[in-house]
């Protein structure tokens, strides 16, 4: 038994990695995804190279235990989105 979320993208409620065409990558719970972009809840973001970690390092680490949120809600514009992947499908580092 659970709740229902009609009218949302199939990834609604799923924790996803949103990689951008630039240096930033976001991880959060997908609320919705449409032509305007991807809306994430309880999201973290990482800048490639920050703290000595590449995007790939950061994603692999997040795949183990999740992320500490920086944003309650963030919209990644559709024009910036390079890929959207389930975090649960990423092999942990």
């Amino acid at each position, binding site marked *: 038994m659970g709740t*229902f*979320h009609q009218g949302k993208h199939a990834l609604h409620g799923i924790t996803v990695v949103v990689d951008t065409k630039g240096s930033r990558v976001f991880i959060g719970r997908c609320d919705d995804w449409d032509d305007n972009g991807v809306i994430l809840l309880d999201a973290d973001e990482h800048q490639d190279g920050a703290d000595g970690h590449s995007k790939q390092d950061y994603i692999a680490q997040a795949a183990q235990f*999740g992320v500490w949120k920086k944003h309650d809600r963030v919209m990644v514009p559709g024009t910036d989105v390079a890929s959207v992947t389930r*975090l*649960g499908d990423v092999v942990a580092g």
Partner: protein
Amino acid sequence: MPYDPIMVQPMREELTRIGVQELRSASDVDAFMQDKSGTAMVVVNSVCGCAAGQARPGVRLALQSEVKPDRVATVFAGQDLDATAKARSYFAQFPPSSPSIALFKDGAVVHFVPRHLIEGRDALSLANHLSEAFQKFCAPAVK
């Protein structure tokens, strides 16, 4: 805003009716965690069907294993806020997510299943994941 308690009650009972101890307050959590002997599991339950809808039956299936934790308890995120915060303080090294599951041995966390490893998977998949952890951490030592 918390969901209507009447709507949430069946989600609580999915676990409590199989003997999982429900912890409704911070003091309940402390009392449960005070016993550091053996193995214990804490399930952070939640309303969202995207993940918790499979987490509860997955836990129920896993607990049918011969090898399982000595004690199992649950807190309900978004409902019992103090109890959930207190429970998370015992596995504070992990980012909070719900549902999630922490397995303890002798008072220390030995295995953690965050939400993103539950959502989108079926109950059997989670049950298998938990059963493997039970075998690794809850099985009696072979002499």
